[in-house]
């Protein structure tokens, strides 16, 4: 199947008073129709900025997409006109944000906010849009959906708000849904509801999903393929079972060891990754993980490793073969 979205060499920078922040440094990935891609990383690893860059939602200045292409069904998202990208955004690629409290306009009713994209993108009349909005509210399991359209965002609970957010994102049946930590602000039982909902809708609509999170657990049950990001680079990419069964980048290994699991058999000491993530003020000419890496040797301090194939569909950016502890060719 052809790639639905093909991103190559994306670089995004922010000019700040303290210097240039290199938020995304040459990120390349693709996604096929109907596929679910997980993007994992800690705060400030560039996962959100990557997605915002694709939708051209980076405030410029200070932000700047410095290089790269992002082909979506054959046309480049990064070079299309403002008019063209507006027809993609919200209609063919839509996004759900982390914080359901602040991503709504507090002075407009939910109904107004749900019908707006329908009228804009699909040219529906007010009555048609209203009808579709009721349908959407039912689709995301909001009880008394019709009455609740007249409510304001503050009248909904966090979980309900995130459902409305998803309804809004799905209103124009997009081909790609980007979910940026949509459950981080929610309780686990509500998180389970939302994940179940997205899975169901994904299968019904047949859309591709990019799910951004710092929680390796969520990705395990949801995604088919996973990207691990660190300091603005993709450092490992693999199908989900391969990544969890055979992680090959020291950072991925550390991340998995630092999590206690609900099904751990015995008490073990957590593996902590020493040190802190780097500041992004300079683009290092060495491996960005080297200062925290137990495997690092001479070459890691001289050359930034490339993301190279290390197995079937498995790529990692590391100069060390962690299996043997010896340098890679």
């Amino acid at each position, binding site marked *: 199947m052809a790639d639905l979205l093909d991103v190559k060499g994306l670089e995004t920078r922010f000019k700040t008073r303290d210097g240039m922040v290199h938020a995304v440094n040459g990120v390349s990935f693709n996604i096929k129709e109907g596929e679910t891609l997980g993007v994992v990383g800690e705060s400030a690893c560039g996962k959100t900025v990557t997605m915002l860059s694709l939708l051209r939602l980076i405030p410029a200045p200070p932000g700047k997409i410095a290089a790269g292409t992002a082909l979506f069904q054959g046309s480049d998202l990064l070079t299309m006109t403002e008019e063209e990208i507006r027809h993609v955004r919200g209609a063919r690629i839509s996004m759900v944000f982390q914080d359901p409290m602040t991503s709504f306009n507090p002075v407009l009713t939910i109904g107004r906010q749900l019908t707006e994209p329908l009228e804009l993108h699909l040219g529906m009349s007010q009555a048609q849009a209203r009808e579709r909005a009721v349908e959407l509210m039912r689709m995301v399991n909001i009880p008394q959906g019709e009455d609740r359209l007249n409510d304001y965002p503050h009248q909904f609970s966090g979980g309900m708000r995130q459902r409305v957010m998803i309804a809004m994102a799905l209103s124009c049946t997009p081909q790609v849904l980007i979910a940026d930590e949509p459950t981080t602000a929610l309780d686990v*039982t509500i998180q*389970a509801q939302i994940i179940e909902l997205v899975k169901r809708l994904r299968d019904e609509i047949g859309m591709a999903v990019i799910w951004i999170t710092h929680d390796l657990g969520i990705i395990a049950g949801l995604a088919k393929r996973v990207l691990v990001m660190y300091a603005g680079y993709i450092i490992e990419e693999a199908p989900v079972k391969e990544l969890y069964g055979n992680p090959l980048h020291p950072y991925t290994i550390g991340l998995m060891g*630092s999590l*206690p699991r*609900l099904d*751990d058999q015995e008490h073990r000491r*957590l593996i902590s990754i020493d040190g802190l993530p780097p500041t992004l003020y300079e683009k290092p000419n060495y491996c960005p993980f080297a200062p925290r890496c137990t495997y690092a040797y001479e070459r890691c301090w001289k050359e930034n490793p490339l993301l190279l194939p290390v197995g079937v569909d498995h790529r990692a950016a590391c100069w060390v073969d962690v299996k043997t502890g010896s340098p890679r060719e």
Partner: protein
Amino acid sequence: MSDNNILLRVEHLVKYFPITRGIIVQRQVGAVHAVDDISFFIKSGETFGLVGESGCGKSTTGRTILQLYRPTSGHVYFEDTDLTTLKPEKMRLMRRRMQMIFQDPYASLNPRMTVGEIVGEPLIIHQVAKGAAVEERVEQLLSLVGLNPAFSNRYPHEFSGGQRQRIGVARALALQPSLIICDEPISALDVSIQAQVVNLLEDLQSQFGLTYLFIAHDLSMVRHISNRVAVMYLGIIVELATRDELFAHPLHPYTQALMSAVPVADPAVEEKRHRIILEGDVPSPVNPPSGCRFRTRCPLAREICAEKVPEWREISPMHWVACHMV
């Protein structure tokens, strides 16, 4: 209270926050039932996990134990002293023995004080040390929590989240307490940093024989660190057992749902798991449901659940549960 192994005993603890109306003459029109009749004890040297979702009253429980909130009713015994009837100056002395680590390492450190002043302040307030002795003790504490003692004249904003939480730990340790209440100490931190702080807490516990009340919403972390675990829902404890017993045989339907909702970082396990998806949201604590508080979301709810409050029963030794259906 004969068992001298018990450090803290909470009996029928209740905390309501009044809701008032009116500006000059304030009338009470209702109450938030934050904590509604809970009882448990913590043994010396153990880690007691208190787990629940946001708004279930777990932080209020922690703060009410320390008498930062005055309880509406009920008793908190620390060793054999009832904290709820203690005079303020006596309570202040007791506070040396019990300290708190807060959730937000950004908000719980005064930005205008240096790290040395923050960590040294409890020593000065409680007149434990003076002058050069304070500085010496601060340096000792900083190196104990893995910070460079030379940083004592820096300000909190110069540190990362994980380092700030270490400062919070050093402050809590300053008076050599017996009990530390950890209120979500790692939930604001990145995954790779969480492990650092949890390992530090475990090391300090084995070094000083500390007792922890570990409040968190992250079930896997609570399971990792605790000896015994209590599960809270809407102001009450629904189940309490030793860690292994609770996770092997969860009896309350809420505990079961909570455990099944936590994702496991293993695709093979995730594929096979059966998830219990709870309907709806947690009801408001202003007007909690009659009878069993969980009945509005419970898959097993019957008539009796609306009529009668389930009894807090010891089902097997050291395993308590409040449910009609068990």
